[in-house]
């Protein structure tokens, strides 16, 4: 299993487009810069919603309105982050495979995806009851703290990838 994953990375690493991107002078740094800015956009907007859930900012604004109007921006950032991230991975697939920071980042990404999924299908169903409340239910605040922690971890792990290369 682990061998075949490595073989896949090796294959991906050696494809034409991957090699071209890895060896490019300008395209790779541009894609990397886009990736960094997109993560900032994702985390910055998610953090605003999380801080609303915690009753720290935009307290007088209904939760559903904050989430409904800010999260579309998150999705734009997420799309850019995903596409640029896949490109960066393809270019350095073998390096990434062996990189502990990259592995940690993937685990954190899976967890950070699970968190809003659980949130959305459990506590958020009753949002009508606490939409206007400055202080949201405990489980909503827990989801917010988890989200802030995990996203911070993703930034840290993402930056650390370069330190392990």
């Amino acid at each position, binding site marked *: 299993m682990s061998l075949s994953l490595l073989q896949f990375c090796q294959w991906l690493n050696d494809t034409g487009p991957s090699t071209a991107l890895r060896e490019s002078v300008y395209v790779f*740094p541009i894609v*990397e*810069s886009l990736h*960094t*800015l997109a*993560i*900032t*956009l994702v*985390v*910055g*907007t998610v*953090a*605003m919603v999380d*801080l609303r859930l915690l009753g*720290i*900012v*935009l*307290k*007088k*604004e209904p939760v559903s*309105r*904050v989430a409904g*109007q*800010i999260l579309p*921006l998150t999705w734009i950032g997420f799309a850019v982050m995903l596409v640029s991230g896949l490109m960066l991975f393809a270019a350095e697939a073998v390096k990434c495979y062996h990189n502990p920071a990259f592995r940690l980042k993937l685990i954190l990404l899976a967890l950070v995806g699970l968190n809003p999924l659980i949130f959305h299908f459990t506590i958020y169903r009753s949002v009508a009851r606490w939409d206007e409340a400055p202080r949201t239910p405990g489980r909503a605040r827990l989801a917010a703290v988890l989200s802030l922690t995990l*996203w*911070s971890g993703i*930034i*840290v792990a993402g*930056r*650390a990838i370069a*330190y392990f290369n």
Partner: protein
Amino acid sequence: MSLLPLFHWYDHTALAAAMHKSTWAFAVVEMIHLIGLALLGGVVLIVNLRLLGVILRQRPADRIARDLSPLLVASMAVLTVTGILMVSEEAMKCYYNTAFRLKMLLLVPALLLSFGIHRRLAAAGKQPDSDRVTKLAAGASLALWFGVGVAGRAIGYL
């Protein structure tokens, strides 16, 4: 007037020496800088998109700005402290780095505009929603901060 002596002095401080000596100090400071950047980006984006009438239109812009002001100030404080620490590690490199110079140049109008916008909104009796100047300032602020981010990332490439 050249800032070279200032950078030269900073490069020889005990702080610079300590940052040099430590293996992880720069990395940790840089990570905190990035998290601060994300928070600042969130605030700047939401306040300016509100001013442009894109999001949260149901609520007056000055309320949104006032609500987010503490976070703006806090994230800027984090960015300033971590930024100054990062420069200590490589003061001379920064001085000669085009991306660093560009970032500092963009930072001045970006900061002035952000605080100007917040002050203008805080002033009583303004009707910022229909104000063209405010919308222009909001657009410019977004563009400038984007530039600050791009230039900041580019420091490492040059």
